[in-house]
């Protein structure tokens, strides 16, 4: 049987399949639905220093093979997370070994730093710095576009945070390789990409944009080929691990990212079409590996780059 064990920043995960931030709550919500022993980790819903309600108006919109969301980082705040939700994540970890990842957003550099400092003192395993949320008007996104701005905020967070730091990139980055290099240079331990793609939908009957913010974030299988391209670029640009995501819905999808060089993968929107998507993806990866005589992911990680 193929061994899916995956070492991410020193944590040995049961599989490379991580629940993507914002789609799996803090893990417990899915506990009875999926076999967590096959899930590598959970990235919790994106946090901001202070809790917030998120966006008003429409929050979800279906598109061909995709979903646009405009949640707007609704969350209970970092301290509440540490007091309550983190403990649930750690219980899951104890039971199943799922690595606990805190996803941190922010509206200013100060907020990022303060939130990261709090998480630094918590029992969370990894901090995923979200510099890429397209759904908050101020902040988030700005850092996701310009490499210098991203490097700056990562440097400040790095200084404030002793936890392994994974920086989550936006597909709106002006230049993916430069962005990757900037966050690596600023002290990131890993990179995850991509967050959602800035998108728009118009409600014909109302003759106005579906979302109050006009733009919102597209994800799901529709974006997978673009996300895979960006992951390919990221792996080529840096020496730190790259966690790939964007539209992964099957074991074959996940293996494409692994063959492009990703250390692990995250699964977001696919959880909505199949609540057992994460488990199914891990199973399908193992099946493919078994059928092809591949024993560990090391044997195939990055193999598609050999011809490069």
């Amino acid at each position, binding site marked *: 049987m193929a061994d899916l064990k995956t070492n991410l920043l020193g944590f040995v995960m049961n599989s490379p399949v991580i629940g993507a931030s*914002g*789609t*799996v*709550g803090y893990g417990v*919500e*899915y*506990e*009875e*639905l999926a076999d967590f022993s096959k899930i590598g980790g959970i990235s919790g*819903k994106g946090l901001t220093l202070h*809790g917030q*309600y*998120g966006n*008003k108006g*429409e*929050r*979800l919109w*279906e*598109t*061909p*093979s*995709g*979903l646009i*969301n405009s*949640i707007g980082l*609704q969350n209970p705040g970092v301290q509440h997370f540490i007091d309550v939700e983190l403990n649930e994540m750690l219980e899951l970890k104890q039971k199943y070994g799922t690595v606990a990842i805190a996803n941190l957003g922010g509206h200013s550099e100060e907020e990022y730093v303060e939130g990261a400092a709090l998480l630094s003192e918590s029992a969370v395993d990894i901090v995923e710095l979200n510099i890429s949320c397209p759904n908050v008007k101020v902040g988030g996104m700005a850092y996701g576009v310009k490499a210098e701005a991203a490097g700056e905020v990562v440097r400040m967070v790095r200084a404030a945070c002793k936890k392994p730091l994974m920086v989550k990139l936006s597909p709106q980055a002006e230049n993916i390789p430069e962005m990757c290099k900037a966050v690596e240079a600023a002290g990131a331990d890993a990179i995850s990409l991509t967050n959602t793609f800035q998108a728009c939908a118009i409600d014909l009957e109302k003759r106005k944009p579906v979302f109050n913010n006009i733009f919102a974030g597209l994800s*799901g*299988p529709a974006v997978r080929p673009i996300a895979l391209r960006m992951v390919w670029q990221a792996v080529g640009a840096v020496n730190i691990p790259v966690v790939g995501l964007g539209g992964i*819905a*099957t074991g074959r999808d996940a293996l494409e990212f692994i063959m492009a060089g990703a250390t692990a993968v995250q699964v977001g*929107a*696919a*959880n*909505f*079409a*199949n*609540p*057992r*998507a994460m488990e199914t993806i891990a199973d399908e990866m193992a099946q493919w590996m078994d059928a092809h005589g591949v024993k560990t992911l090391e044997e195939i990680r990055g193999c598609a780059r050999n011809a490069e």
Partner: protein
Amino acid sequence: MRAACCEATVLSHESILPDIRLLRALWPDREHAPHAGQFFTLRAWGADEAPFLSRPISVHKWEPETQTIEFLYQVIGEGTHKIAQLKTGDTFQLTGPMGNGFDIPALAEQYHKIAVVGGGIGTAPMYQVTRELAAAGVKPDVFFGFRDTPYCMEEYRSIANVVKVSTDTGAVGFHGFVTQLYDPADYDAVLICGPTVMMKNAARICAEKGTPCFVSLEKKMACGIGACLGCTCETKGGEGKSVCKNGPVFDATEVFF
């Protein structure tokens, strides 16, 4: 007890009206039995097929002995059209039960005169509600409003005290709004499911009369289990609640303010 995700089998599938269907399915998971006001998400198409999201439908009737669940639903768009294609013996992805539902034991203990109010397809969950209330010893009065043609009303006679119907067109029953059928002052509590305007109206009248009112809300849903925050509704406290997890049933004063 959280939700399970199972392959359910269609036992029968009836057309009640051109756009109304009654789907009976075998729910294989005895451990996860639903109660009144809860819902399931249905997916009668592949994970890689449109529509992207599964579709939430309330429990119309649940028979624990036979593990049979009934869904009464309206065919509206792509998702319900695909559900409507299911034939006896077909299987489909069923996830649930989800949501808090109505807390029937607590309601039956606390209140003695209960009005069950439904509008259109919002009557769907009210059958299980009425049954459970009756079983708990509190036969409610039932007031349903429809546009033109009432449906699935037959079985209420034995489990309700009174059953009254209104229609917008006057074709059947009272010609007017369902809210005109009853006076909240006569009741200890009012339970409502229907179009948002109707619920808001009914809740306002209840508030005026000081009668507790519980409403079952609808919001577009992605996960159905409180994980995505796609279905958040505004609440008086301002913090927002997930309709799928903290609801769909709310004290009306919490969500209409």
